[in-house]
């Protein structure tokens, strides 16, 4: 008899669940709202003068735990300031082994490498997942940037950061469906 009552009770529980709207979405056609801090792919940025931020310091290459970043450093004269400065002649990031740890963003001294909120599309070839410099600069224009860059992260981790710190306005949380 206990079995019978418990079974009816369980059936009632499943029935109540059946009355709820599905929490999943029809993925490729609809997408859930993502958090502003989401990090998925990479981009290289330009500064206000339209000049490349990357100075080819190779910090990101050295810090990368899975060694997916390759930077070829070069030195040229800047067309804007007419002074010599470092450039990255080539910059490749192999997404196949990337573990999205954000450490390259963390160490960048010029906020050159940042992460984007949208991920790369799946491809049929291995080359498709290698982010060349062209792709990285294209990502800057095409994809929404993630919240963090080195300045923001350093500010967050500042040991002197006081009690009067201001909240990041961009870091609003997304409402989580189902929780409300």
């Amino acid at each position: 008899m206990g079995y019978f009552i418990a079974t009816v009770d369980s059936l009632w529980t499943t029935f109540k669940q059946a009355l709820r709207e599905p929490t999943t979405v029809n993925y490729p056609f609809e997408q859930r709202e993502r958090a502003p801090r989401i990090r998925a792919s990479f981009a290289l940025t330009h500064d206000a003068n339209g000049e490349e931020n990357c100075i080819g310091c190779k910090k990101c290459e050295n810090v990368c735990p899975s060694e997916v970043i390759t930077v070829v450093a070069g030195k040229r004269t800047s067309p804007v300031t007419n002074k010599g400065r470092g450039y990255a002649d080539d910059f490749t990031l192999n997404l196949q082994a990337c573990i999205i740890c954000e450490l390259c963003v963390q160490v960048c001294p010029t906020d050159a490498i940042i992460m984007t909120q949208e991920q790369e599309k799946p491809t049929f070839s291995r080359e498709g997942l290698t982010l060349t410099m062209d792709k990285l600069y294209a990502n800057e224009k095409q994809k929404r940037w993630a919240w963090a860059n080195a300045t923001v992260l350093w500010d967050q981790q500042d040991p002197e950061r006081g009690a009067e710190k201001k909240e990041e306005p961009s870091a609003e949380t997304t409402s989580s469906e189902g929780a409300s």
Partner: protein
Amino acid sequence: MNEALELLANPWIHGFVFGAVIVTALMSVTAYITWFERKFAARLHSRMGPTMVGPKGLLQPIADGLKMIQKEDIVPRDADRLLFNAAPAITLFFALAVAAVIPFSPGLLASNLDIGVLYALAVSGLMGFPVWVGAWASNNKYALFGGMRAVAQAISYEIPMVLSALVPVVLAGSLSIGQIVEYQIEHGWFAFWPPGPGIFAFVLFMLTALAEGNRIPFDIPEAESELVAGPTTEYTGIKFGLFASAEYIHSLLASALGAALFLGGWDGPFGIPVFWMLLKTCMLFVGVTWIRWTLLRFRSDQLMALCWVYLVPGALGLLLITGLYVHVRG
């Protein structure tokens, strides 16, 4: 026209024509039952279920069938080829053979056997054995376990199933399913009248039907988390599809049998009889599905204990009470 009707009166031709109609209908219904079950389960899980093939995923069963036919047909090297290949077909044959005596409406049945109940139970009871044959022929230890469990379960649960099905037989005084249904139309459904043994026999029958159909909570032969896929571990493609559809057909026909024996068959207040029969069958099948997606699984020894300690004595008691009732009624 008259000649055609005369031709139909020949039992062989009648059986062939109606058999073909019922088998075709059953196979297509089974395909859509899988769609229904997937949508139903998805709903319970807060998922969406199949959405991609056709509107609301309605063409999904067809896509499934095509996919299964396309798949590579693998026969393990050490398998017994003949038995391995024959087992799915035999299983499906037994599953479909039950349909011969299920009356969907006064005229719509393949064969109006005088011993319909006996035949249906005997053939559905046989279904466990080709499964076991396939499992044995696979030469796989998981399949062997599954086959052994399937046979043990089929043998054990056959007994309370037959005993509980005997209750309407005793009440109606006939072994023909058609006559049992007609008796119910006259005297009220056995599940509710006479109050007492009928409803218990009905619950017992559906319970054992769950077990015979390898449905959770009695699905120990297949037990995915323990035995990978049980008897069908080594089967691929359409052979696996045959096993799966045999299982669905078995569950469906058990529901139909339950509807005919206990819920008055095609009896309904208005409209065409076959509609009521199908409605009752579907309601029972929804119940079976619902239970499947709700409960956890028994252990095999607990399953056997449940059968031999509770169900068999209970069914015997029910039969005794029914006999007394019939005796007193005169």
